[in-house]
């Protein structure tokens, strides 16, 4: 438990939809250690998104235990959860979720605005560096509608990184992107993981899951398989192949 970054035991989650009680998670246990790169797979309604919301500290637990970085999250209040999200978690969403009509750099600065220990000079510097690390330094003043989907997702990645979180949680990060851009995003993930960043990613695309170190498969609110990826793929090579075969028009 102590050496696990994320430690989930017998987690259950149920909520009411109208009169029906939905059991989204029925006893899930999972350990994620620092430096791991986990892809969570499963069909729609398998509970993977609910699980993601819980380990992302966006939702409360019905039953079971959840320790994030050794801290018992179960008893935390709304504000304490917000604090955890601000300091320990970086989110990436399927639909990018960056603020409209707000420049790239301002979007990346956003998490730091809610962190009182960061001054305005340091905030700008860190936001710039984060944007630079995803290769968008030259587009820092662009508005979201001037950026492509891939670029928007890269802004979102920069925003997730800017707080130096312990873990990056990505919910279908490639769901709205074409294959080539997906691979490019995966390249960034790979590079982050190689630098020691822990990543938990939800995806329903098997070929995207192949880039992770290990795969966890959900079905009906339970984990049915959890193991290392055997023939792991490298996004850089896949991208090369893609361009060689010219399977996809070159779009960025």
């Amino acid at each position: 438990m102590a050496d696990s970054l994320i430690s989930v035991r017998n987690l259950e989650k149920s909520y009411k939809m109208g009169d029906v009680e939905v059991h989204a998670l029925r006893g899930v246990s999972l350990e994620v250690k620092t430096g791991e790169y986990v892809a969570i797979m499963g069909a729609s309604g398998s509970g993977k998104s609910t699980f993601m919301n819980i380990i992302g500290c966006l939702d409360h637990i019905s039953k079971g235990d959840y320790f994030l970085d050794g801290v018992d999250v179960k008893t935390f209040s709304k504000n304490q959860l917000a604090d955890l999200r601000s300091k320990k978690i970086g989110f990436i969403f399927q639909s990018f979720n960056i603020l409209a009509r707000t420049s790239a750099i301002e979007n990346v600065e956003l998490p730091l605005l809610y962190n009182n220990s960061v001054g305005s000079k340091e905030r700008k510097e860190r936001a710039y560096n984060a944007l630079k690390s995803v290769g968008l330094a030259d587009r820092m003043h662009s508005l979201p509608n001037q950026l492509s989907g891939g670029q928007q997702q890269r802004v979102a990645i920069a925003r997730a990184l800017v707080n130096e979180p312990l873990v990056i949680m990505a919910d279908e990060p490639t769901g709205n992107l074409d294959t080539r851009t997906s691979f490019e995003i995966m390249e960034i993930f790979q590079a982050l993981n190689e630098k020691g960043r822990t990543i938990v990613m939800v995806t329903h695309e098997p070929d995207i899951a192949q880039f992770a170190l290990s795969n966890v498969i959900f079905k009906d609110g339970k984990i049915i398989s959890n193991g290392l990826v055997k023939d792991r793929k490298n996004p850089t090579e896949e991208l090369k192949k893609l361009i060689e075969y010219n399977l996809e028009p070159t779009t960025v």
Partner: protein
Amino acid sequence: MNLINLFKVAYRSLKKNLFRTFLTMLGIIIGVASVIAMLAIGQGSKENITASISSLGTNTIMIYPGAFSMGGVRMGAGSVSTLTKEDAEAILRRCELVSHVVPVVNKSSQIIAGSQNWKTNVVGSHADYFFIRDLHIQTGNIYSESDEHSAAKVCVVGQTVVTNLFGENVDPIGKMIRINAIPFKIIGMLEKKGQNTFGQDQDDIIIAPFFTVQKRMLQTTFINSILASGLDEKVIDEATLEIKPILREMHKLPPNDEDDFTIRTQQDIAKTFGSISSVLTILLASIASISLLVGGIGIMNIMLVSVTERTREIGIRLAIGAKSKDVLLQFMIESIFISLIGGALGILLGLLIAFLVSSLGGWPVTVTLSSILLSSVFSATIGIFFGWYPARKAANLNPIDALRYE
């Protein structure tokens, strides 16, 4: 999140919807401006009325015959003459706080001069009457003491009377007029005074020696009123208190009977009119503040729309670490910002309206600091009050639901 950042965030989001922000502000601007302008106009006319009443002389005391009861039947005030010349003399003799006291008789009479005639108010009083009423002679003289003793048939006329009897710019001195068939010689003409606050023409008057009017014209022993002037404006109220027991004694009133006279001062009248215009001012201001209220509801409406529209943004903010408090403050600051800036612009517009009313309309206008403070506080309160509910709604959003919101 610290406050400076919150202000930045609020400012950025208001700037993104500049026109909408302005329209929302407009409600507050108009509300505040109308409150300021109404208060300024109300206050201005109040001061104008008070000033013109004060110009009649604030140290004048007027004593009228009061309620008279006979065998338990109370007659209305002024129904019976209870005052006499001796009352006036007693007041002058015994009250130390008054400088001049005169008995006054007056009657509205038909005046004839040659082929012209005119109905006017004929006042009979001593020469001190001119001092108490602050009347000045333009040409000629006031009647002398011997005129008074002999009940001489002389008079001083106001300019309206002159104009109506003799025409414009005629020197009436030495001319004869007939009042109730008694011939009078004009020995003086008053300076023009114009209308008083109540719209009465103060130049439509004839003043003659007291005995002339009382004995020759009216043939009575009673008088219509007593006019007195205090030593000083400040002692008027005390003087009134001194006069009361003197008159009660003169009229031999038993202790339980009510006064058969009424004492009024110019200050009382000024106060009455002041309070009337205060009521009008409050009325105007409350009508104006309704528009301020409507402006506030406008803010609430827009903020609610804004919260719904930005549900996703709120979800994002919550997901990346914003606390409920941060979201609450962000929306509160936005609404307070709208109402404060709106309030400031409203004050400027209000001042402009007040200025235009006074310079173009010639209406007296006084902008008071308190009206500016009042509307500033009011508009800030509106921002807080009407911003609270939408902000609360935003802060209580569940981040998961907010992120899913389309």
